[in-house]
């Protein structure tokens, strides 16, 4: 340890180019749709429909901006559990996505292979090496797909994340490590989570470029991810992006932020709300008018309500699903237990 040495500086990117109007409008629609669906989900939790929920408020730009750099025909996203805005922007079936929060199935009920968005996973570092393996497969198969691995500042402390980044560096795997540093790993702030202060700075040790971007600026996240994807596709290997953002809500609906953070901090971050910020930028650039924003609001509201109604109506899984997916080649013992369950337990 050399405490007198400052941490290696991560690359500071130039100010992002202004977004083309169409893209700005698309980002706005997705971010708002995610925001309103997030609010519906919190309401559903308060009504007792969802046993628990993990709000995404504040991180919409980091998620919508990053997945916009992907090509769903050939790329694949490995999420953890707070990636609602990313899922929505990718076109994942949001009823199936929220089914995970309604506890209808742990991994969600969308098809992760078809939607190119991996199953929800609560071991926060767990999916990161999966992204590397998937990306290694793309190279071995001679394809050009890129894996996007979401994880948070808390997950960055997990050993699996370090192993994954090192393996990706060694293998030059086409993967983009997208850390959403939302400042709080449940109740633990960055200062107690990240020795050295920067996740992006770690990239140098893994032989890849690392960039810290303003995670509340959708254009900055989009541009950084697009560059990382371009590198990955052209065989230059992995990249690490630290999108510095803020979890405006609690870690989960079971959480009480009053126990560990200053409300003044939350109010201060309201000023950086990524959706308000994009709206201001679009207005200033003349990319959208009141009518656009009103229309976007109506559409987002309608889609959030559809997903809300859908997840409320979603049937519980049949009991046979307990047994159905354990193996591709079921064992005789499991078949015996399945039969016994049908006789003794099944309604």
């Amino acid at each position: 340890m050399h405490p007198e040495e400052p941490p290696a500086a991560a690359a500071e990117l130039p100010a992002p180019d202004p977004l083309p109007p169409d893209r700005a409008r698309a980002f706005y629609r997705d971010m708002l749709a995610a925001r309103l669906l997030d609010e519906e989900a919190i309401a559903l939790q308060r009504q007792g429909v969802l046993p628990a929920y993990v709000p995404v408020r504040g991180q919409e730009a980091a998620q919508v901006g990053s997945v916009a750099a992907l090509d769903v025909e050939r790329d694949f996203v490995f999420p953890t559990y707070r990636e609602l805005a990313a899922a929505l922007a990718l076109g994942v079936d949001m009823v199936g996505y929220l089914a995970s929060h309604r506890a209808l199935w742990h991994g969600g009920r969308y098809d992760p292979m078809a939607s190119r968005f991996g199953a929800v996973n609560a071991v926060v570092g767990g999916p990161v090496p999966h992204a590397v393996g998937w990306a290694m497969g793309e190279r071995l198969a001679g394809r050009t797909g890129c894996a996007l691995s979401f994880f948070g500042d808390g997950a960055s402390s997990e050993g699996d994340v370090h192993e994954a980044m090192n393996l990706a560096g060694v293998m030059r795997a086409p993967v983009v490590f997208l850390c959403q540093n939302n400042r709080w790993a449940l109740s633990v702030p960055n200062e107690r989570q990240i020795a050295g202060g920067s996740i992006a700075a770690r990239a140098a040790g893994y032989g890849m470029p690392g960039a810290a971007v303003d995670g509340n600026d959708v254009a900055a996240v989009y541009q950084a991810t697009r560059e990382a994807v371009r590198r990955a596709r052209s065989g230059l290997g992995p990249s690490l992006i630290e999108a510095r953002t803020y979890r405006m809500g609690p870690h989960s609906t079971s959480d009480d932020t009053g126990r560990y953070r200053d409300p003044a901090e939350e109010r201060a971050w309201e000023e950086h709300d990524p959706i308000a910020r994009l709206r201001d930028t679009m207005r200033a650039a003349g990319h959208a008018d009141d009518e656009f924003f009103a229309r976007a609001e109506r559409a987002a509201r309608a889609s959030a309500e559809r997903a809300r109604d859908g997840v409320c109506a979603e049937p519980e899984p049949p009991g046979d699903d307990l047994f159905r997916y354990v193996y591709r080649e079921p064992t005789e013992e499991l078949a015996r237990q399945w039969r016994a369950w049908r006789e003794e337990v099944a309604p």
Partner: protein
Amino acid sequence: MTGVTVERARSAAPPEESGGTVEMSMRDALNRALDTALREDPATLVFGEDVGRLGGVFRVTDGLWRAFGQDRVFDTPISEAAIIGSAVGLAMNGFRPIPELQFDGFGYPAVDQIVNQLARMHYRTRGAAPMPVTVRLPSFGGIRAPEHHGESLEALFAHVPGLKVVAPSNPHDAYHLLLRAVRADDPVIFMEPKARYWDRGPVVLDPAGEGERADDPIGSSRVVRTGRHATLFAWGAMVRRCLQVAELAAEDGVELEVVDLRWLSPIDADGLAASVGRTRRAVVVHEAPLTAGLGAEVAALVTERAFRDLAAPVQRVTGYDVPYPAGPLEPQYLPTNDRVLLAVQRTLEY
């Protein structure tokens, strides 16, 4: 496998007339099985620590790197979680990975990826993500290795839904069980008894026409010696110990049946019960500690299925409930011939 453009490569093994019986060590049988697997499916990959240029610390992967190239057989950093985690991602991308964890004790750093990820990704994704991964795990003691280099993790992994666990005891089974594991569409933990790597025996490479063996279903045990006074149940390195005990007992006119479980998940409960039906007495022998070990599972299964056949309680001869010992103490830890014979005697006295 679709879309994989990796060319099929030539074999690492010297040419051999097919269908023949070949005398070889278990290590060579495993090498041959990996060679066969790599040849028959271009989606198959072998990777782990030192499996490439070095050919593995036990040389099980010797020559494969040269024969199949570094896209198919490659070294990884020392990263057990990343080795298994990347295998999960590769499986999601259509590959059939055969990762190696160099020694059993290094399975522990990968437990999260094995238990939380590999074992349940198929379940978590409601069947959408295939997980045809075979984790090769040099296992058990008997070679006086340093700490973490001689452990018995079978009860841990056999307890995990979504995994299958298998341990061969001889070169022939090593060849065929490894191929069966690789061809399986579910994750398999393949526990290689490292004390038996150098044991030689006949391997029927292509048993077509032999009427048995190659297509033994997953979960099948094997009676490796028939007897009528008691059954010894064992797997991995302890099978040879039990065969030695059976020889010794035969000198005193006690005929012991020896059953090699082979598959530790799923366990061949019917096969075990059938043996007890013939002998009415059972002793389970394993290297792992006694408490909550797989011997308890075997005893329970036999009791559930063949209680009326049993003339005596099922006996267990195991390691002790202590951390795996240093080399000089190993012979005092592992089940000995005398301990197994004493247990046989106890069951015969009922």
